[in-house]
């Protein structure tokens, strides 16, 4: 050990959304807090300045904002019999890095789960009987309900500055909102943004078929906004550079625009960048953590940072790895089904239909990360799992998030991928295309999990995280169902050319094309130490002074983008720390 620093009350690993929330709330208790961030500092100016930030080649294609695989990566295999190999260029998902974490480079799409998603196993048991659940499907109930979380969803939406139109206020369905959403205690803090033409067209078609279109909620400001911390956003101008980019005009919800500057004013809060946490250190009796050891990039040495409370607020993958490396919770064994840490790795499934209209102009360069019209008529609560033969749901949407030339140049599939004909294809079709896609749930399975790779190690000699995941027939059935529904809508719109891109029943998980950065599970919540690595307050069952935030807590993935649940759980957990744990440190459940 090269160095031991002065003890803190709280050490936070990772300064993204949940690290910032935890820091802000606990700083208000007067605690001495240090946040450790492995990546660089990031501020709107200079790091996200125009036009440098909106360089698609650097950011979109070469992932400059993301974790460098040379610093750390993951290995992936599809089943227990394959040998996992390391990702050397990001594909299927993008791991953020630096201050603000993935909250800098997300699109901003923000949803709450449906109430039944939180108690899914019970809901299925009560409605159809547990026998419809496939034998290898390890779904469960979250040890916390939607009703309990509602005030914390609301809090996060008000801090993050979420736009949208409510669909259900205290049980009353609201015109223009999502009638399938869980009840909310109030409207969104900002009205929805205007929508692009593709959304208007989709809404008309969907409404004609009896569906219930609504504008997608999310963190792109539609007005000037001031949140409870006094942090501010300005209205979004549809520049079309959200996902993979930091927002240069203070319009996208991020830790930078909604929490960090307020947090940095707190004299009892400090943070370090270039500080990669290697492991959580334990007391001799193994009952509690004593702090963390991190690698100080600048000093080039390991540092022990003692602390009374350790909060793992890194991305899901790194949180699972730190727990496994530090001996927090029993490692999950996919053969016996015993153990919890690493269990129930989840992902999401997507597919889309593309439509070309020779005489329509969609102006794809007008976009925002949350832009789009959605329907939730095939969501979890609407689907009859017993009749349909799958468990799951999806929302369907027509988005127009960007018109970036490298990755957003949709062409009819018979167009050559290069050369003069490709060029004339672009001249003919650019701006004449729109699409409808789905964003669907993925259940938890016995064989989908995270563990430490037996072969590949990072630069510190620590094993990489190994992910074992593949598409399951349950999700592929749901995907086929959604394809049918989407194509039906698309056909009704009478495009000149229509083409679909969905997984088929033989599809295997392909890590190369981008799908979603909605990796979940591995540090799952459970009502007992046997069913979860953390309890209902995100507190490690076996180390009461360790709390683990983020989507790793998801017992199974929801059908929605996860940030709303991640933010809600963070406020829920920190409220319990503030009200209960600080007064009486010990197990909260």
């Amino acid at each position, binding site marked *: 050990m090269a160095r031991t620093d002065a003890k803190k009350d709280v050490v936070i690993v990772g300064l993204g959304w949940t690290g910032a929330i935890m820091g802000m709330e606990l700083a208000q208790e007067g605690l001495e807090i240090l946040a450790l961030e492995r990546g660089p500092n990031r*501020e*709107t*100016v*200079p790091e996200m*300045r*125009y*036009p440098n930030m909106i360089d698609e080649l650097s950011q979109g294609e070469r992932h400059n904002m993301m974790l460098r695989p040379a610093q750390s990566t993951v290995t992936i295999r599809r089943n227990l019999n394959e040998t996992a190999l390391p990702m050397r260029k990001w594909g299927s998902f993008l791991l953020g890095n630096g201050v603000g974490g993935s909250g800098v480079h997300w699109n901003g799409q923000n949803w709450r789960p449906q109430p039944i998603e939180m108690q899914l196993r019970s809901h299925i048991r009560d409605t159809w009987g547990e026998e419809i659940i496939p034998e290898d499907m390890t779904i469960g109930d979250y040890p916390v309900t939607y009703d309990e979380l509602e005030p914390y969803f609301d809090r996060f939406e*008000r801090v993050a*500055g979420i736009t949208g139109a409510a669909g259900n206020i205290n049980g009353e369905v609201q015109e223009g909102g999502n009638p399938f959403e869980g009840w909310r205690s109030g409207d969104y*803090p*900002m*009205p929805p943004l205007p929508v692009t033409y593709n959304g208007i067209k989709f809404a008309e078609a969907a409404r004609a078929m009896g569906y219930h279109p609504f504008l997608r909620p999310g963190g792109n400001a*539609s*007005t*000037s*906004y*001031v*949140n*409870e*911390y*006094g*942090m*501010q*956003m*300005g*209205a979004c*101008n549809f*520049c079309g550079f959200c996902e993979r980019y930091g927002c*240069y*005009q*203070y319009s996208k919800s991020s830790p930078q*625009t909604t929490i960090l*500057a*307020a947090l*940095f*004013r707190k004299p009892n809060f400090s943070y370090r960048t270039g500080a990669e946490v290697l492991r959580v250190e334990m007391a001799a009796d193994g009952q509690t953590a004593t702090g963390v050891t991190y690698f100080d990039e600048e000093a080039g040495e390991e540092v022990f940072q003692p602390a009374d409370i350790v909060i793992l607020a890194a991305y899901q993958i790194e949180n699972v790895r730190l727990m496994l490396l530090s001996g927090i919770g029993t490692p999950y064994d996919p053969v016996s089904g015993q153990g919890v840490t690493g269990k129930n790795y989840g992902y999401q499934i997507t597919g889309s239909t593309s439509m070309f209209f020779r005489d329509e102009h969609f102006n794809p360069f007008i976009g925002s990360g949350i832009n789009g019209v959605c329907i939730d008529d095939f969501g979890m609560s609407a689907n009859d799992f017993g009749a349909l033969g799958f468990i799951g749901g999806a929302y369907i949407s027509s988005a127009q998030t960007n018109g970036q030339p490298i990755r957003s140049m949709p062409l009819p599939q018979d167009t050559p991928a290069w050369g003069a004909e490709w060029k004339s294809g672009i001249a003919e079709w650019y701006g004449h295309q729109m699409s409808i896609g789905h964003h669907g749930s993925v259940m938890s399975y016995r064989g989908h999990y995270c563990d430490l790779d037996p072969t590949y190690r990072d630069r510190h000699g620590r094993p990489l995280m190994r992910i074992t995941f593949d598409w399951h027939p349950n999700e592929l059935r749901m995907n086929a169902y959604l394809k049918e529904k989407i194509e039906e809508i698309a056909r009704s719109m009478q495009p000149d050319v229509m083409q679909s891109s969905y997984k088929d029943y033989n599809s295997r998980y392909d890590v190369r094309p981008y799908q979603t950065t909605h990796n979940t599970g591995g540090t799952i919540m459970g009502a007992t130490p046997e069913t979860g690595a953390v309890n209902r307050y995100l507190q490690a069952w076996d180390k009461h002074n360790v709390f683990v935030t983020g989507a790793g807590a998801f017992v199974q993935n929801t059908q929605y983008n996860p940030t709303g649940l991640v933010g809600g759980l963070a406020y829920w957990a920190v409220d319990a720390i503030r009200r209960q744990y600080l007064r009486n440190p010990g197990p909260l459940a």
Partner: protein
Amino acid sequence: MIFLRILAAFVLMGIMALVAIIWLPVSRSPLSESVPADWTASPGEGEYVMRAGDCMACHTAENGPDFAGGRAIESPLGTIYTANITPDPETGIGSWTLPQFRAAMIDGLRPDGAHLYPAMPYENYRMLTERDIRALYSYFMDEVEPVNSPVPEPELPLPFNQRWGIRVLNWAILSHDNGFDGTMGDPVLDRGQYLVEGPGHCAACHSPRTVYMGQDGIAAGEPDFLTGGFIAGQEAPPLRGQGSRIRHWPIQELTTFLATGRNFESTANGEMGLVVDHSLQHLTDDDIIAIARFLRAADRLQHEAPEEAVATGPLSIPYAQANAEGADTARMLTGAQPDMPLGARLYLDNCAQCHFVTGRGSPGIFPALQGNSLVTSSEIAPLVSIILQGARVEGTEKRPMPLVMQGYKDRLDDAEIAELASFLRQAWGNAAEPVTEAEVAEIRQSGEAIGH
């Protein structure tokens, strides 16, 4: 012969007067109120007076230790450097007695009897109460860390480097009694009046200057009080009278601006940014409201107190649509025809995302450019330097996010910035002279950013 005699008489009188100016002992003002000898300031009181008086902004060099002085003040006559006012006995004010400190504050006198340059606003501090002076003295002596740091001598040519010359000036400008008597007939308004006229020394920048460079209007009731001036190459806009933009602000927008450096249409850039950062954001809500009420009362406007000085979030504030004066420009920018003038095209490509085609910005975060005195000022350097270097409005307790605008010096050349600045000065009904490429080149050359 007669003529020569008269001339000789005048010369003789002049020499006698000069001798008197140089050699007659200076007089120090009597106490304006009696304070018990055993009176001591309550904890924090002295620091609060320091904040209200904004001592830190001038007496701290950029990135230097607090109050150690050395900040260059450019005056039309040359450069002077602010004093080290830490209690260091050698280079600061550690050896000063209370009466000596008091004389500096209200009479502009050093302990050795030399005159302070009027960059030190003793003309305004003259209105400080004796209690505040004592509180301030004990703050500097007991609570500020001494810093041993000599400051450079002033760089002034003859005759301005002769401090006795200031004495003539002081005969003209220090004719008012020291101490404060409110004239507003209401305790809250009097408190606002005290803060504005005395410690806040708003008139030092926001009142015009007379021919002999004194402030033209230091107190309510004087005709030119706070009708606008200049400071450090930047326009200090009028706070009352016909040309005042703030008279159209709802009172809560005024209090919000004072406390946070930003409001529905404006941000505090440059010198005013320093005032907010070092002084105003530290005042109580009651004092901020008192200041705002006084400013409006002094302009004969309705001055009912707002519910709170700064509204508490969450707040969703819709952005403004184009108004009649701005409609044509907004229409041109929305049309985005390729044959638009270069300045308009550059605006669309670089500025409109935040400041909008309406030129009215996004309330609370991106200032309006329409009717913005910094944009249309005869002093073009602040506008051009913001385009070049960017700008930063510091975060405050109630609005902690620093508002940082990036600079465009690497993206736009001098000719483009001249076109862009000229466009801004004439768009949305703005009517100011265009900016030339040569002017931009000169400002670029100086490398100066405002508020640093």
